[in-house]
C-alpha cells in the first residue's frame, strides 16, 4: 500500500508545477460562476424570496452553481486522456512491466491529483463565490462532513468512468468519438449542466439509476440537505464499488487483448 500512497503523493506534488495554468483556470471558473449565477438570479427576479424551482431556491441555485464550478477540476467532468495517450505512445508497456496493479496505479495518482485540485481550485473558487454572492452553507457539522466525504467518492466514480473510456484506446486508435459521447452524457447526467430535479420526470428516473449523478448532484444535495446523509453517501459507495468492479473486468479484457494481439 505504501507505494500507492507514494504515487498519490507525487501526483499531488506534480499539480503544483504549473502556477500560471492554475490562476488562469481559477479565473475561468469564477467568470463562469458569475455568469451562471447572474442568469439564474435573473430567472428568479420578481419572485418571492422563498420561491423554488424543482426544490431549489435562488440562493440554493447559486450555491449549486459555485459547487459545480469548484468541483470541475477535482472531479473532472470532461476530456481526460492520460491513459489513452500512454497507449498511443507506447508508454503503457513500461507501466505494465512494473510489479504493480495497473488500476490502483492510476487511481492513486488520480486521488493525489484530485486532492491537489481541491486546494488549488475548489477552495479558492468557493471562496470567490462566497465573496461575490450569498451562498447557502451546510446547516450542521454532519452535513459538512458528509459533503467532504462525498468529494473523494465523486472523484472515484468520475475516475472509473474516465479509466474505462481511456481503456477503449486498446481497441480503437481514435478515441474522439466515444469521448465526446461520454463528455455530453457526463455533463447532462451528472447535473453539471442543470440541476437534475429540473429535468422532466422520465429523465430524472433514468438519471437516478445511473452512476453519473454521484459525481456532482449527490454532493450538492448533501450540502443543501436535499437528501439524507445515509442515502446520499450510500448511493456513492454503491456506485464506486460497482464502477471499480467494471474497471477490473474491462482491464482484464484489455490486458488480454494486448498480450495476445500486441499493442
Amino acid at each position, binding site marked *: 500500500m*505504501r507505494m500507492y500512497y507514494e504515487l498519490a503523493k507525487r501526483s499531488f506534488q506534480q499539480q503544483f508545477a504549473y502556477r500560471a495554468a492554475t490562476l488562469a483556470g481559477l479565473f475561468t471558473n469564477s467568470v463562469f460562476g458569475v455568469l451562471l449565477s447572474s442568469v439564474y438570479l435573473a430567472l428568479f427576479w420578481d419572485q418571492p424570496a422563498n420561491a423554488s424551482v424543482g426544490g431549489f431556491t435562488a440562493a440554493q441555485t447559486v450555491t449549486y452553481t459555485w459547487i459545480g464550478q469548484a468541483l470541475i477540476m477535482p472531479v473532472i467532468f470532461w476530456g481526460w486522456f492520460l491513459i489513452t495517450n500512454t497507449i498511443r505512445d*507506447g508508454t503503457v508497456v513500461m507501466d505494465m512491466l512494473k510489479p504493480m496493479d495497473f488500476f490502483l496505479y492510476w487511481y492513486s495518482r488520480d486521488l493525489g491529483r484530485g486532492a491537489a485540485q481541491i486546494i488549488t481550485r475548489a477552495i479558492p473558487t468557493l471562496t470567490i463565490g462566497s465573496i461575490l454572492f450569498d451562498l447557502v452553507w451546510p446547516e450542521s457539522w454532519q452535513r459538512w462532513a458528509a459533503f467532504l466525504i462525498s468529494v473523494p467518492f465523486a472523484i472515484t466514480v468520475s475516475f472509473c468512468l474516465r479509466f474505462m473510456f481511456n481503456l477503449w484506446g486498446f481497441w480503437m486508435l481514435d478515441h474522439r468519438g466515444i469521448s465526446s459521447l461520454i463528455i455530453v452524457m457526463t455533463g447532462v447526467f451528472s447535473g453539471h449542466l442543470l440541476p437534475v430535479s429540473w429535468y422532466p420526470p422520465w429523465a430524472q428516473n433514468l438519471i437516478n439509476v445511473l452512476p453519473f449523478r454521484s459525481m456532482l448532484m449527490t454532493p450538492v444535495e448533501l450540502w443543501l440537505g436535499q437528501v439524507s446523509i445515509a442515502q446520499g453517501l450510500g448511493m456513492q459507495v454503491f456506485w464506486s464499488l460497482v464502477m471499480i468492479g467494471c474497471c477490473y473486468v474491462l482491464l482484464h479484457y484489455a490486458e488480454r487483448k494486448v*498480450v495476445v494481439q500486441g499493442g
Partner: protein
Amino acid sequence: MSMISVRDLRKTFPIKRHRSGMKGSIASLFRPEYEGEFAAVKGISFEVARGEIVGYIGPNGAGKSTTIKMLTGILVPTSGDATVAGLVPWEKRKQLAQKIGVVFGQRTQLWWDLALIESLELLKHLYRVPEARFQENLATATELLGLGDFLQTPVRQLSLGQRMRGDLAASLLHDPEILYLDEPTIGLDIVAKAAIRDFLQTLNRERQTTVLLTTHDLDDIEQLCARIMVIDHGEVMFDGELNALKSRWGGRRQLIVDFASDPDADIGSISNGALEVTQIDGPRVTIAFDRDAISAPDVLGRAGAFGEVRDMSLQEPEIEDVIRRMYEGSVPIRT
C-alpha cells in the same frame, strides 16, 4: 544455468482487412475480417547464460521488439516455450517484473514534472527496494553516470543524454538479474554514449547482470557485446561471436599496397577466387581477399611481382559492411 532459454518461439498476427467507407468501418468494428496472418517471429531458439551481454540486432521490423515483448511477458507467443530467470514470462509477468529492468531509448519511465530524484524514490517504493540497498545503488549510479548535477532537476528540463542516464539508473535500482535495453544510445552525443557503455560494462562485471541489447549503433556492439544475434524476417540469421560474424560474412579483408611508382597495368590479372583487385588509383592498389583462402603475406607477395612495394596497410572488415551484406543476402546461417 541459462538466464534466458527460448525454444521454437513463434508469434503470428492476423492481418485485418480494411473495408472502405462508413459502412465498412462500422462492419469492421463489429465483425472484423481477416486476410491471412503475418509471422513476426518464426520459431526462434537460443540460450543466454548468466552474465552475458548479447547484442540483438536486425533491421526495423525484423522481429526484435516482438521477441523482447514475449521475453518480458507482455506478449503471449503463438507457440513455443521460453523461461526467463526461471519463469515463464507471460504466465508470471508481475513476478518477473521484479527481476528485470527495461529501458526503451525512445520512452521514459521518469515523471515529467518531478525532479529526477523523486522518480527514483518512487521506483524504490514500487519495487520495494530496502533503503540501504537503494542508497547504495543510487550512489553507484550517481558516480558512474554523473547524475549528481541534475538529480534535483525536473525531468522535462533534462537533455536527452541526461534523461537517458536517469532512465538507466531507474531501471537498475532493484538489482535486476536481466536488463533489456532497446536502443539505449539513440540520439546521444559521444560523451553520453561512452558514459553509458562504461556503466554497462561495470555493472556486468561486478554484478553479473545479463544484458540483452538491441541497437542500430554498431559501436555499441563492437564495444559491449562478445556475442551477437542477428535477426531478420523473424528468423535468427546468425548467433555467435562478433569475430565469427566478420569472418563468415564480411569475410574479406583489404590489403592496400602503395608502390614506389605505378605498377604494371596487368596487376588486375592476379584476381582469382581468393582475392580481387578492387581499386587501382595510381601507385595505390586495393586488394580484397578471403582470410580463410589466402594469407596476407601471400597476397603481398603476389602483388610484389608487379612493382616495388613501398608501404602497405591491412584493413579488417567493417561491421557495417558485414551487417549490410547479411541483410542483402538474407540466407540464414547458424553456428
